[in-house]
């Protein structure tokens, strides 16, 4: 059974039609890269999956784990296992990372009728994840993304991914604004996350991320539709030729 099944979805944002009949199926164990020019609808796809207010599915359906989730609230989707790594992570001043991470973890456990992680085990886990992502453990005490550099913000997204262990990770241009060292750390984190039970949708502008996270499929999104699909060699072709030959 597919983990994610986007069937012929059209969607609009602020009265503008952005997605115009998009199909995408992701099975457990697969990594799908979505590439495409600016304004093709990549971020809209990410936000539609997460249920961001203001993004409206006008026809078609989004199924997750066999359920039509079109009417689900964003936090309900998160509880079910959909995770979105943000392109521009927001700052939440005064709320420490530690507090935020624990609240996320607890909310998910509560919704799924699981036991809460005890505080000591949680702190230990959060510290070791931070270390593995080259984040100073002190960062856990700081406000969520408060005064973080671009690279720190993105690594923080990956830390949340590894902590929450979702079923489906949607990474919205996580590579943007990263230098090569940070890119490797982030890619290594995503690779650590990958397993046979989860899926990844990797939205990116550039081929270089795919040198580190090797996708099973590459799709090209243009004007709200997937216009070409292939394996990782498609990304290399795009790198050479650009998008113009497809649109």
């Amino acid at each position, binding site marked *: 059974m597919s983990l994610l099944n986007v069937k012929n979805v059209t969607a609009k944002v602020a009265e503008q039609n952005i997605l115009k009949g998009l199909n995408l199926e992701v099975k457990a164990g697969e990594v799908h890269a979505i590439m495409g020019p600016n304004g093709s609808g990549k971020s809209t796809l990410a936000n539609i999956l*997460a*249920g*961001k*207010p*203001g993004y409206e599915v006008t026809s078609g359906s989004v199924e997750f784990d066999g359920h039509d989730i*079109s*009417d*689900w*609230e*964003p*936090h309900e*989707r*998160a*509880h079910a296992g959909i*995770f*979105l790594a*943000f392109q521009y*992570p*927001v700052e*939440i*001043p*005064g*709320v420490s990372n530690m*507090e*935020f991470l624990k*609240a*996320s973890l607890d*909310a*998910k456990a509560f*919704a799924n009728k699981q036991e809460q992680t005890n505080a000591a085990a949680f702190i230990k886990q959060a510290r070791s994840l931070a270390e593995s992502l080259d984040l100073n453990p002190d960062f856990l005490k700081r*406000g969520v993304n408060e005064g973080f550099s671009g690279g720190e913000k993105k690594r923080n997204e990956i830390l*949340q991914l590894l902590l*929450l262990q979702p079923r489906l990770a949607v990474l919205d241009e996580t590579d943007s604004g990263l230098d090569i060292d940070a890119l490797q750390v982030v890619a290594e984190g995503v690779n650590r996350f990958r397993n046979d039970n989860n899926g990844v949708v990797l939205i990116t502008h550039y081929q270089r991320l795919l040198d580190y996270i090797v996708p099973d499929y590459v799709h090209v999104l243009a004007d709200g539709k997937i216009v070409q699909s292939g394996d990782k060699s498609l990304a290399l072709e795009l790198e050479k030729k650009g998008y113009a030959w497809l649109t």
Partner: protein
Amino acid sequence: MSHSVDDLVKSNAEYQAGFISNIESDTIPPGLDESVVRFISAKKGEPQWLTEWRLEAYTKWREMTAPEWAHVHFPPVDFESISYYSAPKDMSDGPKSLAEVDPELLRTYEKLGIPLHEQEALAGVIQSRPNVAVDAVFDSVSIATTFKDKLAEAGVVFCPISEAVHSHPELVQKYLGSVVPKGDNFYAALNSAVFSDGSFVYIPKGVRCPMELSTYFRINERNTGQFERTLIIADEGSHVSYLEGCTAPMRDENQLHAAVVELVALGDAQIKYSTVQNWYPGDENGKGGIYNFVTKRGLCAGARSKISWTQVETGSAITWKYPSVVLRGDHSVGEFYSVALTNNRQQADTGTKMIHMGKDTRSTIISKGISTGRSENSYRGLVRISPTASGARNFTQCDSLLIGDTCGAHTFPYIENSNTQAIVEHEATTSKVSEDQLFACQQRGIDPEKAVSMIVNGFCKEVFKELPMEFAVEAGKLLEVSLEGAVG
């Protein structure tokens, strides 16, 4: 399907302290003249000087007009329609032992989570406030003060002010009105004329008060005002931490609360005064609620003394309140930490005054205003550096947080610096709980209600950390309740 911030700003807040206690009261007829002032004074068996003091205040009040400069709007208060004295019937012959107090009164405080039985408090039956001495003021009278004996061992006096007038007349006469003169302002003059009860605290030289002191104010009777008066004197080198809480039933008419609080810190003394103000704020359409018109001022009389005000203001239909510090002693320190949250139709005009007179005096002001619903929230603060205050320093930070787009936040800072060697810094920010923040929390599984509360608590963190431990927890919870309207 999804919540936007605007959707969340629906008003359905539940005021949990809004019940009415069925207590038979002696309430005098509405209206104010000399005979009412004399009646109150006689009721308390006050000495001649105090009766006269009240009458002078009354005469001044008659000549004054209500202040209109605050950024709040309400129809003029009809002072003739208010009753100026109300006491539970069985209390009218003076305070009795707890065993004789009307059980309904005790139940009222039980419901509010205020322990009046010392044994229970000691045993920690009521978890929220272990080992805190409480003075409970119900309408115009104090009904019980706990832990008096234990405090007496340390030489600490903690009793109703009406009792202190008799037991410690020299202290009361010396300090009453010494910080807030009886003609200070319209509401202070009114209070001076008709004040009924409140707490009196004296900490002797060099004593660190062995427990937190607190007063819990409750307005119950209809058409009454509450005019309490608190006087705290910290003698040289002493320390005290004092907490104050307030609630009132939900009633359709507005009720007036015009208190005066005076603090005196002698050399090297420290007073920490914390308030969690949760008067009934009125309903979502602005009907009913308390008018909280309060004068609070502290005098750092001696060198190296320190006065710190921390307030969490979530209640009242209208708040008009500027807890201030007069820094007279050299090297004295004044602090003001404030969280003011307004929802629905609430209006708050609150802030502080730091008056620097002594050399090398320091003051810190941290103000956090949160507005939601259709409320208006203003910070108004004065920092005055006198010519004598060489080396004085002030740091002010005013942050406003808006939830939704039908509320208002305003900042009115006044700086009067007459000393070129003083340093005054002011920072101000205004931000909104953004849709993006809310969505980011939701995407991580945190529901919108919890998310808003977390964001607001984060915003207030610098102030909450100044509150005594058990109060900080309470304040966080109170904020959550007060935000209920804002979060669906």
